[in-house]
């Protein structure tokens, strides 16, 4: 064992900048995907709890499909598999753009939405059914009752499991490197390939992921405690 540690290398101008660039892409990728996944997840869970059969079927099959296939397969499907079904003129324009990043966001948000929908559903089901009945009785429509009465409470209840989903998403975002998105893990491998100091490179990446995750979970918990506190 004659491994010589060289931490200064990692923080040198060039490699340090790579790590920051990677971190910034990871933040953008995760941030955008979290927002989209929340919106999509809420829509799915509303569909699933509605009384309209086709919507329920759609939501159930969506959730089961996306929860039960590996994310990497989904990423490759979106990236390589979508090619034959896209029209030519659109493809030509699309491929000039930053399609790798866009596919990363689509794959991460559609995947995580399935999990968020299930978390939200359990939150909604934990709210007494009488509340929905009471709000319907006062003349609110189903969507209004959901939007004003049920969902605001359900969201508060599911904050802790939602945090886990957000953290999962942040960690899953590293899979976007398989289609060439230059996020944090990609950059760490890049640094390793150039310097042969894999131990240092991945330690820095690990610490960055760890602090990012801790910040997110601390932040949301604080927000939940201070601003959304509900007496139950």
């Amino acid at each position, binding site marked *: 064992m004659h491994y010589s540690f060289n931490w200064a290398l990692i923080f040198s101008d060039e490699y340090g900048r790579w790590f920051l660039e990677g971190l910034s892409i990871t933040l953008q990728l995760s941030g955008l995907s979290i927002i989209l996944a929340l919106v999509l997840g809420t829509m799915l869970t509303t569909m699933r709890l509605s009384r309209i059969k086709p919507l329920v079927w759609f939501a159930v099959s969506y959730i089961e499909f996306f929860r039960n296939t590996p994310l990497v397969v989904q990423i490759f499907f979106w990236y390589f598999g979508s090619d034959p079904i896209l029209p030519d003129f659109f493809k030509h324009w699309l491929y000039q753009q930053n399609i790798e990043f866009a596919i990363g966001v689509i794959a991460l948000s559609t995947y995580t939405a399935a999990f968020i929908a299930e978390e939200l559903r359990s939150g909604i089901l934990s709210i007494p059914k009488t509340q929905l009945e009471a709000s319907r009785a006062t003349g609110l429509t189903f969507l209004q009752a959901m939007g004003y009465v049920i969902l605001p409470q359900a969201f508060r209840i599911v904050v802790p499991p939602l945090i886990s989903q957000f953290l999962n998403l942040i960690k899953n975002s590293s899979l976007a490197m398989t289609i060439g998105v230059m996020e944090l893990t990609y950059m760490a*491998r890049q640094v390793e390939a150039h310097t042969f100091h894999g131990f240092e490179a991945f330690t820095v990446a690990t610490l960055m992921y760890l602090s990012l995750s801790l910040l997110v979970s601390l932040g949301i918990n604080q927000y939940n405690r201070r601003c959304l506190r509900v007496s139950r």
Partner: protein
Amino acid sequence: MKMWKMSVLLTVASLFLVLSAAQAGKIDEIKARGTLIAGVKDSQPPFGYVDENSRQIVGFEPELCAALAAKLGVKLELKPITSSTRIPMLEQGAIDLIAGTLTHQIAREEKIDFSITYFPAAQKLLVKADSGITSVADLAGKKVGSAKGSTSEQNIKKAQPECTVVSFETYPEAFLAMKQGKVVAVTTDAPILLGIRNSDDNPADWVIAGEDIAAEPYGIGVPENDSKFRDFVNISLMEMWKSGEYQALYDKWFGEKTNFHIPLTWTMELWP
């Protein structure tokens, strides 16, 4: 607790054994063992790949290693390596040498030693035949595919700062992205590009284009600080060139009759 202490002791003891083995010269070690263990590529035709019929690793580099083993009078054992495992495997002593499209880089000298160049590859572009791309200058504002961790990835960014590099796990994936139109070119060492091109159903649709983006001289990787072993490899390579054995081998894998025709236009570094 006792078990725990015991296992620590055993680990330390085995570490010492490994270290003391590393002290003896590689040549003595190989001769005592009776086999030369060479790390070669197993999916990079024609450098090193698994033959469909015999299920054995064959290629230019395995045969080069066979010649070295013959000079030592020992048997040859081939171990498959990848671009990311080869240097750690050599450092740990799992293999005696690397003959696997290993570019001789100064940065790599920190970990291992190199022989003289046995194959002077150069980085080029693979593009669609009707794309109109003939040089690196044409890539401005376009997307170029490459593989992660390769020297090509870094070189193309230097040669054309205005292009976007999209890196994949392997070159076949980068090639698929080009076929779908997501990147306009794939860049790496010309012999590898030739291999990808010839694996396609319609090789004529693709051409290797552009100037030499960077030199990629392949050297045999040998353990750090074992100059006797490195001398042996260097002198053997030179002897093979002088006797014509090298040229015959080259012709077998890169000659006109093969799918990987690259004219032999260089001369090996020969010491008087």
